[in-house]
């Protein structure tokens, strides 16, 4: 073995002593988990602004790029940090997300693929129309300028999923459902739930489509499926919450908000929905038409006419089905746990898996009232999530004179801000799709790379979903890809959790599924796209367009520093950087693509990349 991995301690004994010393230091102080970035004095503030900007963009977009980070950092310089972020948010909230179906149609037309809902292969491109549901998603996620909206739509899909196989009219239904979420990215929780409730794809997924009122005297009851999940997963949760804390009983167990009787009652509400009839002979049970607004239709004669009593409230008998649904969604979104439950789901998708209590209180307060009396306003909620001081001030960024070169300033990012109660529990694991998107955006994957390869452009990652274990439109169940309350049972987190305020790590539920870290998966995906050449074990990401700018002298150090600033928000461990430099640097200083790509592979496998603070 050529290299010593822990180069700064040349002997085993030295390493041992150093480790012992570090343990002592860690016991006395917070361990400095941060990186040091050494820059010219004149550049120091610019780099600090870059770190602030990339930290924000790592939470608000599908991934920071050099261009977007630089632009936002410049605005921080011009008008101040929070002003720049608010300006960026304002700008994003005013953008309209392009419907995925329109994007897919444009791509299909340009590629000359036959427009079909079934699996028809293009004669030379080995592409079927249905693949375009994925192509459109990727194209928009990676290249759309409406990055906050893209991130929000992806968040909503993870919270309120519907599965591919329930697309009744082929692949288009998938895109229509995704477009429903995209359209509601910045509406209200109430409006979002209404559109979801009437969506035929959701109706198929949770069997509210063609759900008849039944006849209890004959032992036929309303289907409880959507009723149960809309409460448990999309609006209020099963556990009682008081002031951002789970209510517990005398044994320390959580108290549930409702019983199965509530479920059987609310199940009556979601009866009577089916497709519109396509012809005069069709009935509720075989209707196959499509309405102009894309919604399921209420068939009043199949809607349960009785009273519905749940959550301590009663909806009177003999109302119209649509009125029952409207009243029910009002009750759910006005229920006392909704502001905490739903805000927390969104917080988990953007900033931290476990929210500190004051943070959750502040966001929930905005859910309750956006300042103009509107409840559940997603625009206000997402701003509150991103701009909270717990999140924005999570890093302490400091400048000192570099002791090894006094012409330079050392920038230190300390993620361990102890003034927040939950400082060591804050942050989230980037989910696999987001890791992949972050990586592809940073390395400038673009359409042109595929030209001459039989494709007309666009990033077309076939089968990426299965490969990273998080398929677009293929959630594992109605719980999505992971449970919002997943917590590891062994390991460091397990000792820190409490019933009333658990430490949860939803995305960790996926980790052992992709038992090898993501970079291997990325290799597999990108290999299919000829971004990399995979014929030898030594070529990893060598054809990445963004890698080219690092080939040459001292480029490994530059690559590591740039990844640290743009993808790690300055949190890359110093020892990790040193180890990589020693392990991979060529003594001649001439770094080739292979060496650089190995560094990328290791860095993307590290906890520093996987976890955003």
């Amino acid at each position, binding site marked *: *073995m050529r290299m010593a991995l822990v180069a700064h301690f040349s002997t085993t004994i030295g390493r041992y002593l150093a480790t012992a010393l570090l343990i002592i230091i*860690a016991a006395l102080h917070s361990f400095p*988990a941060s990186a040091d970035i050494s820059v010219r004095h004149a550049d120091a503030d610019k780099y600090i602004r870059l770190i602030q900007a990339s930290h924000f963009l790592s939470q608000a977009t599908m991934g920071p790029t050099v261009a977007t980070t630089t632009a936002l950092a410049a605005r921080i310089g011009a008008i101040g940090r929070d002003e720049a972020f608010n300006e960026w948010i304002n700008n994003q909230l005013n953008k309209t997300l392009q419907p995925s179906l329109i994007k897919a149609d444009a791509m299909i037309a340009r590629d000359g693929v036959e427009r079909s809902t079934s699996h028809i292969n293009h004669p030379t491109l080995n592409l079927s129309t249905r693949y375009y549901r994925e192509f459109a998603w990727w194209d928009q996620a990676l290249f759309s300028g409406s990055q906050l909206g893209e991130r929000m739509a992806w968040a909503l899909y993870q919270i309120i999923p519907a599965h591919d196989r329930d697309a009744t009219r082929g692949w288009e239904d998938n895109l229509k459902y995704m477009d429903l979420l995209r359209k509601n990215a910045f509406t209200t929780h109430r409006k979002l739930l209404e559109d979801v409730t009437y969506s035929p794809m959701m109706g198929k997924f*949770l*069997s509210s489509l063609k759900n008849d009122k*039944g006849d209890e005297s004959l*032992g*036929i*009851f*309303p*289907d*409880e*499926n959507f009723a*149960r999940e809309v409460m*448990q997963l999309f609006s209020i949760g*099963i556990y009682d919450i008081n002031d951002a804390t789970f209510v*517990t009983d005398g*044994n*320390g*167990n959580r108290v549930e908000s409702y019983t*199965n009787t509530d479920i059987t009652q609310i199940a009556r509400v979601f009866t009577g929905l089916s497709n519109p009839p396509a012809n005069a002979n069709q009935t509720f049970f075989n209707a196959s038409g499509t309405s102009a607004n894309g919604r399921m239709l209420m068939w009043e004669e199949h809607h349960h006419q009785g009273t519905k009593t749940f959550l301590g409230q009663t909806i009177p008998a003999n109302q119209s089905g649509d009125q029952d649904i409207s009243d029910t969604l009002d009750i759910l979104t006005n229920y006392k746990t909704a502001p905490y439950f739903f805000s927390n789901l969104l917080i988990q998708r953007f900033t931290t898996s476990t929210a500190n209590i004051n943070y959750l209180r502040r966001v929930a307060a905005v859910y309750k009232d956006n300042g103009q009396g509107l409840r559940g306003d997603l625009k206000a909620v997402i701003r509150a999530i991103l701009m909270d001081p717990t999140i924005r001030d999570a890093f302490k960024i400091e400048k000192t004179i570099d002791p090894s070169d006094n012409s330079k300033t050392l920038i230190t990012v300390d*993620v361990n801000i102890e003034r927040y109660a939950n400082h*060591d*529990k*804050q*942050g989230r694991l980037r989910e696999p799709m987001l890791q992949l998107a972050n990586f592809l955006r940073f390395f400038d994957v673009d359409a042109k790379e595929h030209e001459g390869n039989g494709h007309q452009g666009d990033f077309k990652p076939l089968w990426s979903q299965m490969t990273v274990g998080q398929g677009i439109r293929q959630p594992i*169940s109605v719980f999505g890809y992971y*449970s919002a*309350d997943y*917590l590891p*049972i*062994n*390991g460091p987190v*397990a000792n820190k959790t*409490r019933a009333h305020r*658990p430490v949860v790590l939803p995305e*960790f*539920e996926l*980790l*052992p*599924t*992709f*038992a*090898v*870290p993501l970079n*291997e998966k990325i*290799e597999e995906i990108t290999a299919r796209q000829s971004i990399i050449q995979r014929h030898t*074990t030594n070529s*990893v990401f060598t054809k990445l367009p963004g890698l080219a700018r690092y080939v040459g002298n001292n480029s490994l150090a530059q690559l590591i520093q740039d990844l640290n600033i743009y993808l790690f928000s300055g949190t890359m*461990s110093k*020892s*990790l950087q040193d*180890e990589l430099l020693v392990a991979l640097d060529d003594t001649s200083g001439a770094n080739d693509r292979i060496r650089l790509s*190995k560094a990328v*592979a*290791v860095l993307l*496998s*590290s*906890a520093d990349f996987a*976890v955003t603070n």
Partner: protein
Amino acid sequence: MTDSTNFSKNRRHFLGDCGKMASLAILPSLLTFKNLNAAVANNSNIDGYKALVCVFLAGGNDSFNMIAPYSTANHRNYMQARPVVGIPQNELTPIPTNNSSSMSHLGFHPSMGQMGRMYRSGDAAIIANIGTLVRPTTINAYRSKNSLPTGLFSHREQQLSWQTSVADNTAASGWIGRMSELLNDVDTTGADTSLMFSLGGSPRIMTGSNSSGFAISTDGANVLDLYSDTSVRDAYNATLNERYTSLLKQQYTHDYKGIIDKAEFYNNAMAASNDPFGPTAFPNTGLGNQLRQVALTIAAKDSLNAKRQSFIVSQGGYDFHQNLTARQAPLLTELNDALIAFNNAMKTIGMHDNVVSYTASDFGRTVLGNGTGSDHGWGGNSIVMGGAVKGANTYGTYPFNMTDGGSPNIDIGRGRYIPTTSVDQLHADLAHWYGVGNSDISLIVPHESEYGGNLRVGLFD
């Protein structure tokens, strides 16, 4: 081995996981248990090889259609309760409820005719109306919400309860996880060997206080080319030795540490073992391929250095609120074919008496339907299979009278049945067979004392 250091170490691990979410109800039994090292060391059952396979049917299998009433009067009642989704008597494969009876009380689903014949041959048993319980529960106790499982009728909570055997604590460790840690304490030969295998996901069942199931795929463990490069591999391993204040980063490195070495160890051991089954022994289905990998791993037990191995495989999609009849049949066919193949495979390698498999699911479903489907219920039926099982018997109490109101002591509405046998009771039998001494059963089934002398189902001699 009565050293007090070991004792406190072990007690810490068990308290560490069961006690942390403050389910106080279970603490007394844990605080008073005896020296477990001594108990295990004295247990002669730890000798020899045994494997346990949990076949998880995710989504809530409608197991009153998997195993339905057959005798004429009971079947008529069943059809009255299930006019749309009930299965006609002449399509069921009839079976007796005990091996000395010539009567046919129950019938297997038409997709599972072979399974029915296997049951009759004595290779399999049924546990009737089994489900999650904190303690034996009456209808009145249910109505007064006295000691009920957390999150009844919810997929997630009920899946967890089946896997933890601690129905009132969703944060408890997995019952097989606890058991493997207990037995591994004295199994020095397997100290570095993973005993628990999961085909997909990170199921709670295989999660102990210090160890987790090792995820393998139907092709083996995933190690790709990148790590054959020493510099990359060493650098990667170094990232796992970073020390972080962030709990998330600590957890991340904890979860990945050693995973490449384990994967290589597994793959090398598998490569050193021949495939005794051949390419057509298992159906080429999701479950068939998973059970094939399980069978191969069992066949490689010597090169894996294992005296005990446990596995979880799963088959999803059972949540049929609509179109139950058409959609359940192909899943049960897949289940039937895979279980039959696995049973034969164990005979092929002479392991039939050493391996026990059982089915688990989120919950049973409402007997009274909602049209063409059924909703989330509670008690349901499980299959237990293997040479050691006293087969051709149905254990527990099957709810034969399925008319609306026909089983008033267990029916909480719509034919949602309070289980008459607890998941804990099944686990107690399985744990004892696997090698856990009587005095340690409470570590595996913390609510043991709720069952008094009725804990054991009697599946094994």
